[in-house]
């Protein structure tokens, strides 16, 4: 049985293999299906995770091939495994009904006509055989009691199912959290806290020291007003609109949600930060009399936050049909446009983002490309038709409420555009007037600022203004940090891939360093001007910047040859100046990140001599090509010439420009 960590690597490896060999997708999927059928029950789950990872990360054609006998594949296995595995399979199935998190494609992983029969069958089975099921379970346990505990790779994905009747709530959940969930909703809507992977931080531990105790500088968790969670969430509905009481209860609800999230995910500072902001807000409201317009403003913000925190839970078609949300108060969606126009896109986006951060709390996703029940913070973008938004709506004042609260130590004068109507929640949505921020693509992994309002200019006054929402673009908006180096990764698909590769990279480096320790190391020469100009810091699959020389032979060799031929530049001075005996040309020196040293590309050592691998291959092919080699015709040599010509051209260019 694999350890969780091993299986994570295995799964990501297998996924990569599947990705690289899509031309054999049929064979691969058949092999996996067969394996799923034949393997012992306690090994089925990891295999399903491979399937899950492949369909989510690679997609077609695998979805097609796996889809063919999905019912059989799933149900046959389901019948044989124990409850804990079943629970995980349920979860997995649920994610198949949703789009791939972070993906632009709104279609579900598997089409509903494939998942629905499975679901129906499961529901039937559950209702009619509850008791028989218990019996069966017992028997099964007896049969399998050896392999039981290892059956699920716990560290890998011990995702808590939605809090349901037979599962005790996680011990650290704040009291009152569980009860807030009407039981019938637990299956109907994707779990809120099912996304938290409470034991995830452990999954990462092979790389670093165990995380310390939850951060303590955010006292709210302890000091926070207990009143907040004593208030049943539904209370807010009866209270008159726009009243402080209503606002308070909304804030309470948000606090409750945040606390629950935080309890599940104590290492995620962004939740803590948000919680603290909410608690501050609550204190302010409780202790001070505020002018009505400011209260209105706060209310808007809170409403937005509530909505934002719901957004991830549901798949919404463009028409705003809001399913009941378990915790946060539901606001009529109609409010959104007016709010965003009052507060500016930045504020809204910042909050929406903030409330989505629990998911980026991706220490979880550390090594796993697999995303099953995943946070979907990208989703707000599905809620509104993107095209029509008046992106140019003049909204100069875009700092968030919380920012202002902090900036003035309290609530400073509000300078939002006054033309906007007071935020009454019942405003009808003008069709085609969605909040402009929703138009930006969901995964702004490159420039997180793109959808934040950034009004800073290089003027003394502008440089002195506080803009916490911008600071957050250096922290929580970038996703969750790597435990090794603090680099943050988005929770979207791309970010997760990067993070997985990044963790692998850390791992490899540790290995290589240990090896290098033994053989002695030295500083390398600096690169030559032209090599430097030609080199690129490439954000590659490994999630680390790699410097590659972006020219001819290296690139093409790498493309044709998965294992490219190179040799470390020899330390022996005699060899270091050697020429290829075949073409009498020098070797091309490069810094190769993969090897972490300077290498000669396309080089091969045969006996005591070093050849160009291509020359050597050419020379040893057969007699006919050997004859050819005498002339300067062979493609390999010609290609090299050409590269050199480029170099010369550049060299002269630099010279002439100088």
């Amino acid at each position: 049985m694999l350890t969780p960590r091993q299986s994570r690597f295995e799964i990501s490896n297998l996924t990569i293999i599947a990705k690289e060999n899509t031309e054999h997708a049929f064979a691969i999927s058949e092999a996996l299906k067969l394996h799923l059928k034949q393997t012992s029950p306690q090994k089925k789950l990891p295999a399903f995770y491979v399937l899950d990872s492949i369909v989510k990360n690679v997609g077609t054609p695998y979805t097609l091939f796996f889809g063919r006998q999905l019912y059989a594949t799933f149900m046959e296995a389901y019948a044989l495994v124990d409850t804990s595995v079943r629970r995980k399979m349920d979860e997995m199935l649920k994610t198949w009904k949703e789009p791939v998190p972070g993906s632009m494609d709104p279609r579900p992983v598997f089409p509903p006509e494939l998942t629905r029969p499975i679901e129906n069958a499961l529901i039937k089975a559950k209702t009619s055989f509850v008791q028989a099921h218990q019996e069966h379970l017992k028997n099964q346990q007896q049969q399998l009691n050896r392999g039981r505990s290892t059956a699920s790779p716990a560290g890998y994905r011990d995702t808590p199912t939605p809090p349901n009747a037979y599962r005790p709530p996680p011990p650290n959940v704040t009291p009152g959290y569980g009860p807030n969930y009407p039981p019938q909703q637990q299956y109907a809507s994707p779990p809120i806290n099912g996304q938290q992977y409470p034991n995830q931080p452990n999954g990462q531990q092979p790389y670093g020291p165990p995380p310390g105790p939850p951060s303590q500088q955010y006292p709210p968790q302890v000091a926070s007003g207990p009143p907040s969670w004593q208030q049943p969430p539904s209370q807010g509905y009866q209270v008159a609109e726009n009243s402080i009481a209503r606002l308070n209860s909304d804030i309470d609800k948000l606090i409750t949600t945040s606390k629950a999230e935080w309890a599940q995910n104590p290492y995620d500072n962004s939740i803590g930060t948000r919680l603290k902001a909410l608690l501050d807000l609550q204190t302010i409201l409780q202790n001070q009399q505020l002018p009505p317009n400011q209260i209105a403003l706060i209310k808007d913000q809170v409403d937005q936050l509530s909505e934002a925190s719901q957004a991830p839970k549901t798949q919404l078609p463009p028409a705003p049909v809001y399913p009941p949300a378990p915790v946060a108060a539901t606001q009529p969606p109609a409010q959104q446009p007016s709010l965003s126009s009052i507060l500016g896109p930045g504020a809204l986006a910042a909050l929406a983002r903030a409330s989505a951060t629990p998911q980026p709390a991706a220490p979880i996703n550390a090594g796993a490309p697999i995303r099953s029940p995943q946070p979907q913070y990208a989703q707000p973008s599905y809620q509104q038709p993107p095209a029509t938004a008046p992106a140019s709506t003049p909204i100069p004042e875009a700092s968030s409420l919380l920012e202002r609260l902090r900036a003035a130590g309290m609530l400073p004068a509000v300078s939002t555009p006054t033309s906007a109507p007071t935020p009454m929640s019942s405003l009808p949505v003008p069709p085609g007037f969605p909040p402009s921020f929703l138009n930006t693509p969901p995964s702004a992994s490159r420039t997180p600022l793109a959808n934040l309002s950034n009004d800073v200019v290089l003027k003394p006054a502008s440089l002195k203004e506080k803009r916490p929402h911008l600071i957050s673009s250096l922290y929580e908006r970038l996703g969750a940090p790597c435990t090794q180096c603090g680099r943050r990764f988005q929770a979207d698909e791309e970010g997760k891939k990067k993070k997985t590769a990044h963790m692998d990279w850390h791992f490899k480096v540790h290995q290589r360093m240990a090896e290098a320790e033994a053989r002695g190391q030295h500083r390398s020469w600096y690169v030559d001007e032209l090599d430097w100009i030609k080199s690129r810091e490439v954000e590659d699959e490994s999630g680390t910047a790699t410097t590659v020389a972006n020219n001819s032979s290296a690139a093409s060799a790498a493309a044709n040859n998965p294992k490219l031929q190179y040799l470390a530049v020899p330390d022996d001075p005699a060899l270091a100046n050697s020429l290829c005996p075949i073409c009498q040309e020098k070797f091309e020196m490069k810094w190769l990140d993969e090897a972490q040293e300077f290498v000669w590309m396309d080089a091969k050592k045969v006996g005591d001599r070093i050849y160009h691998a291509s020359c050597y291959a050419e020379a040893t092919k057969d007699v006919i090509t050997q004859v050819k080699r005498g002339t300067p015709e062979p493609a390999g040599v010609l290609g090299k010439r050409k590269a050199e010509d480029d170099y010369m051209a550049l060299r002269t260019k630099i010279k002439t420009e100088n």
Partner: protein
Amino acid sequence: MAMIPGLGNAAPTATFSAPAIAATVAVHELRAESEWRFEVAIGQKIEVRVMSGTAELFGTELALNHIYTFWGTKSSIYTWHGCRIEVTGLCEEYTAEETPMLQYANTHFALERLRDEAQQKRGEGPRVLLVGPNNSGKTSLVKLLTAYAIRMGRQPMVINTDPREGLLSIPGTLTATPFASIIDVEQGWGSSPTSTSSPVPVKLPLCYYYGLASPEDNTKLYKPIVTRLALASTSRLAEDQIIKETGMIIDTPGIICQGKGGYDLISHIVSEFSVNTILVLGSERLHIEMQKRFSGHRTSTGESITLVKLDKSGGCVDRDDTFMQQTQEAAIKEYFFGDSKSTLSPHTQQMGFDDVIIYKIREANAMSFLPGGMEEEATGLYEKVEPNPGMLHCMLAVMYATTSDSQDTVRDASVMGFVYVSEVDDKKRRFKVLAPMNTRITDRPLIWGSWPEASMSVIA
């Protein structure tokens, strides 16, 4: 170039009125938006662990519960949200609540705006020049802006035009380095490539050798090297879209911030790099001088120059000559022997006097009393010299050029690496050098400058 927010001097007790000598293990609670400034004497080290909250060191976020080791440095850890850190080892330290970080971070976001614009137009990101007197925090701000840009997925090109301190290289060099990966917080800027892996990705600097301490020691050498540096960087930018969008961040020597000669050098850098943003640190007078000089100025592409004055951090401290000398020696040692994380083994090579071509840099401006500069023109930038005992314990730059190249070509060549003269035997006409690796260097011209200074302690 000078700021190292930290405190006191290398001789710890001298400047520090009430040195807080930390206990072996101490836990500090930092409030939001405060800065923990610390100084570790050369030869000492401390370990710092962020237990909770968020913390950053010159803009680079520190990982929670990761143990960072600092040695021989004056530095600071800032927190936007508050944090708690555990410090093991002895250092001088205090916590400051007042910092210009808000201004600095906003500067970054203003630059981000310009980068976003550049990205949309597929144009060039801002070329930012930092000027300010010695010890005003230029280098620290360069580092902060670089780190923030990296965090947002950018790739800034960082240019160092200050020969007093090296950037990923030894003092006396001028470098250009694209930064795509996290800055090594423990080691200043990080490391140039070695034969092994590094826990923080290595950076690839392009080095030119000036070899004197101050740009004004020989402007006839300094200017063409800056020109060459700008040419290479611009060529890279032209082909490298992501760096182009991000732009450049240029560090300058503090010494050129006074007097007309210095301002002329600033103008030279501004025009060679097409600088369109100038950040003036600390000095009101310099700010006004810069305004006078550049208010109507247009870059080669017709852009006007934005000039803004930023506050100097209270964490900046004067670094005396002793400290500068110690850091210089540390940089040389590190070049050959690595740091505490990975040990490097240099090679010793022996060469005959006649095997090598060595050029000694003339300090032209020192002879400027000579009439008309005729002599300088006539004698050239370098003087060809034989190895001699005066070279003992000096650094020689190995140039990417051939021994038959002209002096101008050698001057424009980039640096392949450095060797350290460990022994000169006049009688046998042989000398020994320490080289990073065992490659023949006799087919390359070597340059002998007066900076970095000769230092015994490298091989001690």
